[in-house]
């Protein structure tokens, strides 16, 4: 019988009338990797926040090494040797890796040289590759994550919690991370990893605990389970994990991007000589490590990002002429009769206004209509009600501020509005990020419907499995350059992974 590093008994946490966790029981042993699997909103992060001292449970007990513990603050968690690696890194950009790692430890003896030696020992022990004198702002996402992990280890953590650690990594980096985690497990650490990616759960963890709508469904041995069983536990019923992919009907060029370059405010080049064509009736996927220029590319097309050089051309199906969209504002693009819909990555910060209700958010696209100086709310109200019914948006009413809706429902409102404009080009950036399985499939279906209607769909995604199942062609972007375009029906994950990290024209390092 292995010793339980941490044991939760009947943990309950409510926020108002929302039950985030109900009677959750969980055990993590030393020398074990436990995955916590659950859809968004199933209470995974709330549960981990209670272990790391950010929230305090309403009911229930936490035992650490067999003794009941009170974790009322992150410092308490730290004293119990619990370390959490958050999804959003908390590092000081202008400090080096070593400085960040020793930051916050006040034992009265600041000695960076001695500490660096200790840090190096930790790195060697677990096989981290880390340049300790490198400044954080020059690091890649995966290096920053390494710093976070080494930081909690240096502080002496025995119990590590990782919140969606692979969301920002390439397949190759993910493999490296998993190797390190396995080595840490072998030295007797207890590791909890929060994720919703099934294949990672299966390849990494020893046991899987599943949460559904805040309730604890059960724990299974990874060796004795499979994807469909886990999905069923997670969702509550059987789900077909296949995305339909129809053959494109009569694809012809709709949007042509010619050699565009652009740079951000600091003058750093974000897009470097990007050229491609998006066809009507086809889904073009864009793959790449987060922050490789996907955002800038879509915003450049939508008229939100200044282009230094190059051209964006739109083949107008009505007139048959080519319209030049470069240097046009979003309003001018719409006045040209170009029906360009855009589901941006930042839903509540760009696509919608969080504090406004669903009706007023519908109005964003249409409020200008008519000569009157007053608003016409009838049309938007009908549209809001139509979308709520059609896409099964869960909301008390159309007058509810969208920020109160769950992530999936927010996205349905946004995608619904963009599709309601009957676009000829539909761009969607990470449209299923943070959505549960059912909502994700609703979105995939909507994109497929648009494709069938002859819309040129551009889909920026992060889950390569989904990209490979959904898209007709996949374009890979790395450091602002197009590193390749592959056929979605024949390409492999490894092939795309290599293209993602390829930085210059030469052959990538395998």
């Amino acid at each position: 019988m292995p010793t339980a590093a941490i044991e939760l008994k009947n943990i309950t946490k409510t926020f108002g009338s929302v039950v985030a966790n109900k009677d959750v029981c969980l055990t993590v042993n030393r020398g074990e990797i436990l995955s916590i699997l659950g859809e968004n909103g199933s209470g995974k992060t709330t549960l981990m926040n209670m272990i790391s001292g950010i929230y305090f449970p309403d009911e229930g007990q936490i035992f650490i090494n067999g003794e009941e513990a009170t974790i009322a603050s992150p410092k308490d968690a730290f004293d119990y040797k619990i370390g959490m690696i958050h999804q959003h890194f908390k590092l000081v950009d202008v400090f080096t890796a070593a400085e960040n790692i020793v930051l916050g430890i006040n034992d009265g003896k600041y000695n960076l040289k001695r500490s660096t030696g200790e840090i190096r020992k930790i790195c060697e022990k677990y096989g981290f590759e880390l340049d300790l004198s490198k400044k954080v702002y020059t690091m890649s996402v995966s290096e920053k994550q390494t710093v976070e992990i080494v930081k909690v280890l240096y502080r002496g953590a025995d119990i590590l919690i990782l919140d969606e650690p692979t969301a920002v990594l390439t397949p190759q980096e993910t493999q490296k991370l998993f190797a390190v985690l396995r080595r840490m497990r072998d030295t007797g650490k207890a590791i909890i990893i929060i994720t919703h990616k099934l294949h990672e759960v299966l390849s990494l963890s020893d046991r899987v605990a599943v949460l559904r709508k805040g309730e604890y469904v059960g724990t299974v041995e990874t060796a004795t389970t499979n994807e469909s069983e886990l999905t069923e536990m997670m969702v509550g019923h059987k789900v077909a994990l296949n995305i339909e992919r129809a053959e494109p009907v009569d694809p012809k060029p709709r949007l042509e991007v010619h050699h565009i370059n652009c740079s951000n405010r600091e003058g750093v080049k974000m897009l470097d000589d990007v050229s491609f064509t998006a066809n009507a009736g086809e889904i073009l996927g864009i793959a790449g490590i987060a922050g490789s220029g996907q955002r800038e590319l879509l915003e450049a097309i939508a008229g939100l990002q200044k282009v230094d050089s190059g051209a964006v051309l739109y083949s107008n199906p009505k007139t048959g002429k080519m319209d030049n969209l470069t240097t046009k504002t979003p309003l001018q693009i719409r006045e040209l009769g170009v029906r360009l819909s855009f589901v941006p990555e930042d839903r509540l910060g760009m696509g919608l206004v969080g504090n406004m209700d669903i009706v007023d958010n519908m109005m964003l696209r249409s409020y200008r209509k008519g000569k009157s100086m007053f608003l016409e709310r009838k049309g938007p109200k009908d549209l809001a009600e139509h979308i709520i019914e059609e896409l099964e948006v869960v909301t008390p009413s159309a007058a509810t501020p969208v920020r109160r809706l769950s992530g999936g429902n927010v996205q349905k409102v946004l995608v619904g509005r963009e599709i309601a404009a009957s676009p000829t080009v539909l761009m969607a950036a990470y449209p299923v990020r943070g959505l549960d399985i059912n909502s994700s499939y609703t979105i995939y279906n909507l994109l497929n419907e648009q494709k069938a209607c002859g819309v040129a769909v551009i889909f920026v995604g992060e889950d390569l499995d989904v990209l490979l199942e959904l898209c007709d062609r996949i374009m890979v972007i790395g450091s602002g350059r197009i590193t390749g375009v592959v056929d979605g029906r024949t390409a492999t994950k490894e092939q795309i992974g290599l293209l993602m990290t390829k930085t210059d024209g030469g052959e990538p390092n395998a």
Partner: protein
Amino acid sequence: MREQVVRKHHHEPLMHIAKRDDMAWWKAWLIRLAAVLIALLFVGVISVILNGGVFFETYGTMFRGAFGRLGSGSTRLLWKFLQETAILLGISLAVTPAFKMKFWNCGAEGQALIGGLMSAICMMKLSDSLPYPLLLVVTVITSVAAGAVWGVIPAIFKAYYKTNETLFTLMMNYIAMQLVAYYAYVNAIPAGSGQIQSIDTGHLPVIGGQAYLLNILVITVLTVVMAIYLKYSKHGYEIAVVGESQNTARYIGINVKKVIIRTMLISGAVCGLIGCLLVAGTDHSVNANTVGGLGFTAIMVSWLGQFNPGIMIIMSALIVFLDSGAAKVADTFYLNGSYADIVAGIVILFVVGCEFFIRYTVKFRHAQKEVDA
């Protein structure tokens, strides 16, 4: 590395704070009302400690200070109360579009003052050359225009050069004050006194024999117009979108620069109008203190009223009531001027503080658990 003895009390903390569901609107208002009542009770206690008087006497004095003695037949104080509430409300309405857009217009003071200065100039310089009706039109238009100019200068710099509007609008206040001081010095009435005591010509008309009625009516209309503008007009919608997120505004093709400039034109223009009402309508003189800090109090009214003109009426009335009532209490019981500030401070603290109880709930340690332990 770190070896620390974990010394723990095996209790959950005495209490913790949790977020509440949305409360029914009437419950929330009941809490707010209770907050005001508790605050007044608190004020009573403090007053008794300070002046040793009878507890209820404080409230009586307060009411008399704000509204006058009941049954005395004198409505002077009541009219004064309405006038002060109206002017405060008017400036609050003026800054509201700006604040809703998240543009920190701290320059209402200067925008109103420069409007007042233009009124004074028109009254003194043009009343001989223009017929009275035309003079009125010119006075109002120049005052409104001056306020608009004072508002739009920081807006242009904000829109095109991203300057800090808070500092810029504050600076414009000082310029307006200095201009007024200079003008009053040069054109003093009576000459040589260094200040403008009273301008005899070019007053706004008096309606129904009540000096303040015109102001009150104008601001009543203004309240309705502003409420409609903010909620039902396309401009109001654009203001709300820009205030919530400039990214969203750009995304749907709103010209953010244009909205900032247009909104500050309106904000400044309304301030200029209030300045005109003050100078040409009631004061018939102008000095650096004509607006008397209302430009700043208005910011508080606007936020406390959650940019809703209806709630802002209540907030303006509350603040004016506290001010004049507490001044009377201080007067009656020989307390100094700080008393009024203390009273206003206490009430505002309670009004703002009660929002915590509307949004959050405090959960105490479970009684059952204590028995176990």
